């Protein structure tokens, strides 16, 4: 049963990627619907199958091991070839180092006799994220890519869908497999897929940013393979669960720190953040996929899986400080950005930092927060990215200032985007609940909690600006807006998911998170309570009450709406309105008319990239150095 589902989860996306290549463009829409339905069904099926270990014994092991070997060689050869072709020497150098490490691993590290997949609750959550949100993003892409390519005179959709689907296959493998060697293959495939997708436009900027992503992730991959070599030769450990159950946790600190650095690179934490910022040159579905359901999640997934190896140690503390530092730094950077995609990118990095900080704190409460945040962040961020893409198609800009008046031009789209933003920063939605849990958990560490507090305030500010802007009405004429089902279904579905998961957060906690935390650190979080209320030993979060009040507010608003019959007026301009025209203009000093315009405050001089990025690099490198030093000493 579970064996079949595991195999299907890897083979079905590969099958779909081949179908996308084989079938004509006109069928993509149906293919994407089928992919979405099958992906959702398979992932739900995996959850129903329960948890367990799926060993791969002889004879299929020998065959699969050879497949893995060939694929790894192919991946490395492709990287070497492509970086040589574009004369990107740093990437070529990193590729050669990777190849050397691979050859060393192959010849000198003890071979494994069997491989296994290990399905625990975290894997289930990740599979749900990858296969439901990921396929929803592909579905959205079928309504998006035609217009995108038309603008840019591209015709590469076969490559696009092939890589997107293959990406999901690799992610599925990554979150289920237990054997480190195989995990590393999936890890490198996601790196490669993201390179192909980021350089999708094939222009100079795209290719440069693609190579940056490739180089930085190869760097993370080198740390990863270093850890595999150390673990294999010194400790005879070749599986993730082997690290988790190892008794010599303190000895393992160096390889674990190396694995975490691999995770930091993949999750685009400082100082690796530039690859994820560069990734936004790609089409929006790619950003959505990288930011929410795949790629960056692989990094935090690995870090959460490693919790048993560093919980309560100085390495754990170093990771917590590092994560919370990224959280506050990237939240500050997001504040200064006008480009919506850049704001979202920094927000992603910041939230992943929060996940890493929670994992680093390592108490049951904090680890629970980390896993929940992976889930809630993925849903909200996928929605926000897809909305940004659709907004860009509607108004032709991704500048936040151009989005004022959006509520009049595309009400449904704006409502969904607003829901996404609200869910990122306000109760009763899941992200805030996990932020609350992680804050309460972090209160034992003064540095981490102060960073979290500052970052949290900054987060509120940059989302509030954007939220207010899209909801602001304008007197402009309404734009014509076309609604396609394959665009609006994924958006509405994600919006609904946010509400549903937030309502059933305790059920989700009970079913997935608590057992997983028990597996990871042997103690369940001291969270009690029932549906509607979270109670830990140090606090209580009555989210049901907030839902009720929110519903009540909506009800009362609609009930009393007609009690006070509204009369429309133009807005106030100190009596200087140009009433004879359209009410948008005001009379200026020389008695001609100007259009009024107001913009948000971005504090470029304080939080601008030119001010903070260098500081971020220096401090994050010092923190990583401390983490490594803690591992060696």
């Amino acid at each position, binding site marked *: 049963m579970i064996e079949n589902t595991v195999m299907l989860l890897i083979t079905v996306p590969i099958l779909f990627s081949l179908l996308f290549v084989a079938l004509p463009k006109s069928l993509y829409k149906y293919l994407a619907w089928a992919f979405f339905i099958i992906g959702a069904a398979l992932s739900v099926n995996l959850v129903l199958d329960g948890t367990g270990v799926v060993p791969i014994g002889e004879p299929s092991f020998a065959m699969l091991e050879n497949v893995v070997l060939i694929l790894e060689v192919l991946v490395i050869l492709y990287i070497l070839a492509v970086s040589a072709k574009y004369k990107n020497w740093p990437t070529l150098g990193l590729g050669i180092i990777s190849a050397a490490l691979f050859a060393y691993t192959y010849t000198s590290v003890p071979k494994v006799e069997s491989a296994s997949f290990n399905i625990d609750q975290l894997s289930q959550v990740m599979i749900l994220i990858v296969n439901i949100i990921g396929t929803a993003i592909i579905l959205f892409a079928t309504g998006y890519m035609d217009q995108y390519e038309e603008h840019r005179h591209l015709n590469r959709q076969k490559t696009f869908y092939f890589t997107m689907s293959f990406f999901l296959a690799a992610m599925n493998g990554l979150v289920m497999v237990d054997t480190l060697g195989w995990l590393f293959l999936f890890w490198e495939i996601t790196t490669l897929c993201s390179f192909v997708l980021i350089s999708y436009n094939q222009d100079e900027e795209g290719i440069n940013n693609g190579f940056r992503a490739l180089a930085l992730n190869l760097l993370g991959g080198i740390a990863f393979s270093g850890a595999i070599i150390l673990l294999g030769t010194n400790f005879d450990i070749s599986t993730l669960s082997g690290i988790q159950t190892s008794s010599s946790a303190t000895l393992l600190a160096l390889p674990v720190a190396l694995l975490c650095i691999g995770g930091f690179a993949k999750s685009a934490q400082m100082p690796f953040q530039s690859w994820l910022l560069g990734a936004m040159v790609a089409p929006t579905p790619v950003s959505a996929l990288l930011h929410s359901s795949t790629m960056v999640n692989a990094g935090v997934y690995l870090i959460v899986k490693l919790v048993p190896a560093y919980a309560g140690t100085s390495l754990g503390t170093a990771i917590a400080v590092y994560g919370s530092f990224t959280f506050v730094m990237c939240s500050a950077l997001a504040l200064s950005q006008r480009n919506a995609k850049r704001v979202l990118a920094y927000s992603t990095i910041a939230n992943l930092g929060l996940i890493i900080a929670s994992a680093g704190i390592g108490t049951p409460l904090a680890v629970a927060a980390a896993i929940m945040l992976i889930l809630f962040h993925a849903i909200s961020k996928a929605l926000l990215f897809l909305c940004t893409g659709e907004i860009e198609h509607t108004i032709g800009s991704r500048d936040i200032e151009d989005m004022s008046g959006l509520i009049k031009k595309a009400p449904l789209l704006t409502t969904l985007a607003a829901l996404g933003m609200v869910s990122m920063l306000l109760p009763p939605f899941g992200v805030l609940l996990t932020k609350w849990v992680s*804050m309460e958990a972090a209160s034992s560490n003064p540095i981490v909690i102060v960073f979290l507090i500052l970052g949290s305030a900054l987060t509120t*500010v940059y989302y*509030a600006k954007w939220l207010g802007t899209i909801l*602001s*009405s304008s007197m402009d004429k309404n734009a014509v807006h076309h609604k396609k089902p394959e665009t609006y279904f994924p958006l509405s579905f994600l919006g609904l998911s946010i509400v549903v998961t937030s309502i059933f957060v305790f059920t989700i906690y009970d079913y997935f998170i608590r057992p997983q935390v028990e597996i990871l650190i042997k103690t369940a979080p001291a969270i009690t309570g029932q549906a509607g209320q979270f109670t830990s030993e140090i606090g209580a979060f009555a989210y049901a009450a907030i839902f009720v*009040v929110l519903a009540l507010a909506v009800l009362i608003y609609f009930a009393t709406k007609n009690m006070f019959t*509204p009369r429309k*007026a133009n807005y106030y301009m100190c009596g200087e309105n140009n009433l004879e025209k359209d009410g948008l203009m005001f009379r200026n000093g020389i008695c001609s008319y100007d259009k009024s315009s107001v913009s948000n405050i971005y504090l470029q001089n304080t939080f601008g990239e030119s001010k903070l990025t260098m500081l971020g690099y220096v401090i994050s490198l010092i923190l990583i150095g401390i983490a490594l030093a803690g591992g060696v000493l």
Partner: protein
Amino acid sequence: MNMNDVLTVVLVLIGAPILGCLASGIDRRITARLQGRVGPPILQPYYDVKKLLSKDNMIVNASQNFYVVVYLFFIILSLLMLVFKADILMIIFVYTVASLALIVGGMSTGSPYARVGSSREIMAILAYEPILILYALAIYLLTGTFKLSVLVNASTPLLVYTPLIFIAMLVVLNIKLKKSPFDYSTSHHAHQELVKGMTTEYSGPGFAGIEIAHFYEYVFLTGLIFLFWAVNPLIGVLISIAAYLLVIVIDNITARVYWQWMLKLSWSVLLIISIINIAFLYVSKATIMV
């Protein structure tokens, strides 16, 4: 929920706006006296609201009053949670919903004046929110829990260990009540060059809703000050009243500053003294529980 809880809810729903209305009336009276005027009757805020409710519902945007309802409801919810001694961190987050609703409500009208006011109020979040959460953290460090229910049984008043945070909270009170020198997003006084800031486009019933929410907010904010001496309710109330009067006096003796100045004050002085206070609590491992 037992009978007592229901009674408390009803009492808060009815009592808080009366208290807030009186506080607002006293504010106007004191302000008038400080400026050498006689001032309106104490109940003037009530007359204002009554009149506003009978006015036409003039709007510029169909959904602008929705944000007022959310603002009002979440202020009430945060006040109720405070009265029921819930999780202080949670209360602050719920209160943020209310603050954001008012800001978004202002922006939603699209009016340039309202949008300038809202932008400034967003910057105010940056100034006061970290201090509010540090305040919650101080309560946790001293009591071992974020739940306020234990605070009434504490052996020592909170203020004894948190004098620096108390000072920061006074400034927060000043910012949140939108009193001079921090009244740049909207103001109760006529000297605003920004017309009425965030609330420019609100009139009639919508504006009445905002005023009523303000009444609740007065009680909520002074309630946060009350917690500093919750062990003895009488002293707690006296401190709250003193803090409120202080804010009114400051309102009348200072001129409005740039919002940049407030951010600098907050992130250089207030945050630093609050963090020093927190650091002291970590190092001394002080507790106010028996």
